[in-house]
């Protein structure tokens, strides 16, 4: 139903996105994806796992190996989701996010970024999330989980892996000591609880059951955390990162 040719017009693509959300189930969904990673082998592997558009609904419309290429390809193809590696020649994923900021802010056809990283360094991951990525998954993720994550990001939801949840908890735990802007920087008790359960490996559905709330509520908590993370005061998080290295 969402023919790629329709994506040439803004109205058509908005309609397509809308129908993808309402269709929800298998088969009907469709998302255009650009892969950004400097390892060709890895791009090929991901392409092979998620690229069967007929089955997964994911269409890989472009690939890029460094920052300049990525910006060019993303601007030219206007995908809905970009799978972004954290370590890239030419400035890393953060640089791609910085230069694609206008595309992300586009109210009609926002380009959304999902960080896909092999890095264990919290600074890298938090940096990309703060740069505007909608989520973070590790490269050990299975193909079907990755497809799920891509669709969640496309629908505007945030995707937190257990590890990312751990990093975020860590970051906010130490900024709690002297919050500069309480309303902005603090996580609510509920958000903290949700993050903890994500860190413990629970799926959204399981979290909803555990806390007696709806999946939608879980999603909105996670999105709120993401927003706080992206808005939270740079100084605090930098201090956290340095302190962490000293521990």
């Amino acid at each position, binding site marked *: 139903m969402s023919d790629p040719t329709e994506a040439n017009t803004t109205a058509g693509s908005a309609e397509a996105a809308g129908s993808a959300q309402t269709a929800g189930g298998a088969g009907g969904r469709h998302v255009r994806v650009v892969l950004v990673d400097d390892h060709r082998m890895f791009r090929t592997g991901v392409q092979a796992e998620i690229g069967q558009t007929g089955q997964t609904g994911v269409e890989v419309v472009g690939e890029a190996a460094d920052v300049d290429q990525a910006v060019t390809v993303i601007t030219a193809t206007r995908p809905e989701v970009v799978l972004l590696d954290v370590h890239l020649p030419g400035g890393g994923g953060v640089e791609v996010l910085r230069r694609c900021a206008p595309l992300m802010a586009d109210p009609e056809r926002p380009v959304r970024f999902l960080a896909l990283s092999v890095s264990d360094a919290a600074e890298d991951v938090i940096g990309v999330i703060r740069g505007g990525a909608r989520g973070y998954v590790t490269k050990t993720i299975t193909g079907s989980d990755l497809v799920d994550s891509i669709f969640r990001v496309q629908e505007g939801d945030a995707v937190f892996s257990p590890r990312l949840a751990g990093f975020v908890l860590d970051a906010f735990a130490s900024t709690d000591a002297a919050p500069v802007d309480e309303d902005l920087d603090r996580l609510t008790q509920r958000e903290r609880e949700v993050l903890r359960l994500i860190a*413990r490996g629970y799926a959204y559905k399981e979290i909803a059951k555990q806390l007696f709330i709806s999946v939608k509520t879980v999603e909105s908590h996670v999105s709120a955390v993401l927003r706080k993370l992206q808005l939270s005061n740079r100084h605090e998080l930098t201090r956290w990162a340095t302190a962490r290295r000293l521990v």
Partner: protein
Amino acid sequence: MPEAAAAPLAEPRPPRKLYRSSDGRWLGGVARGLAGHLGLPVIWVRLVFVGLFMADGLGALLYAAFWFFVPLGVGGVEARKPPSLVTTETSPDGRRRLVARKPDKGQIVALLLMVVVALVFVGNVNVGSGAKAYLWPAVLVGAGVALVWRQADNARRARWAEVGRRRRTVTLLRAVAGVLLVTAGVSGMFVLQGSAAHLGSVLQAALAVLVGITLLAGPYLVRMTQDLSEERLMRIRAQERAEVAAHVHDSVLHTLTLIQRNAENPGEVRRLARAQERDLRAWLYKPEGNGKDEADEPATVADAVRRNAAEVEDKHGVPIEVVVVGDCPLDERTGAQMQAAREAMVNAAKYGGEGGAVQVYAEVEGRTVFVSVRDRGPGFDLDSIPADRMGVRESIIGRMERNGGTARLRPVPDGGTEVELEMERAEKTS
């Protein structure tokens, strides 16, 4: 006597190279270096030099030659040769005093001594009345040269010991003083030659030649120093790369070989790959702890959780994903908690490993340490287990309660089991 004692000790060792000593030296470290090399007390060598100096200045020439040709060694006599022990025994007080003395003080003493000896030398030896007039300029030149040469030695030593960097002004002063002394000496000779009238023009000419040489040789010198520093940088990089290569070679290639050999055994392959991944990550992403201290006991909760997980993962071949938030030092109570957590991980890996990775989450918040271990296996009901099976009751629940903590086992809504361990940290932590 000391030679006799030193000889048998010196015999079996590889041939020593002669170095000048950088420690406890008075002038160039020649005497001390020689003493170390020959196994003699320093004072003897110094006396010999002074004696030779009386013999028409031969000692000074010899000393200068040694200073010029023999490289400065690290550490001095003590570090260079164990038999120095013998020399210490022969004249313990003398040596110790020399070592303890500040080198700068020694230098002053040496200079005074030199002047005295030179005066005695001049008084005793008949060098002819004409030459006598040149003595003071010659002494000035000698002192200046000595100062500048020592300066060069110090610069070299500073590279090893990282000392003297803060005393840049002092070194500069010394260099300037040396140059001034030499200039004064040379000028003095000119004056004595009766060409005082031409001094100005001679100096100008000398200056012009110097400028000319600098202009001609300058670019080469600059390029040479640049090349040198570049070469040093390349060497450092090559060293780093060699270190990485050594690590990759040792562990990664080794693991890959094992994987190839165990290709038909997926469990073993997975275990090897996971262990290698963990090792490499620890090596790459740990900023200063280079991840090589595997042997000693973990000191913090985060460390202990990670290590336990790694060991259980290795042993049971089930991937364990660890997320740790916060950290604190291990104490008696948290230590017990870590053991209970390990037991829980073993259970999860044994009975719940088929459902996928075991997830371990540890959090230190304030005084509370919380650990959760969850699997996605068939589930587990504590009440259905016979009362005589003490594994879970004793090693997990019992252990936690004895140490003042709590343990909860519960089924997860969508299958699997979760063990939650909560413990307050001990009151007194250093």
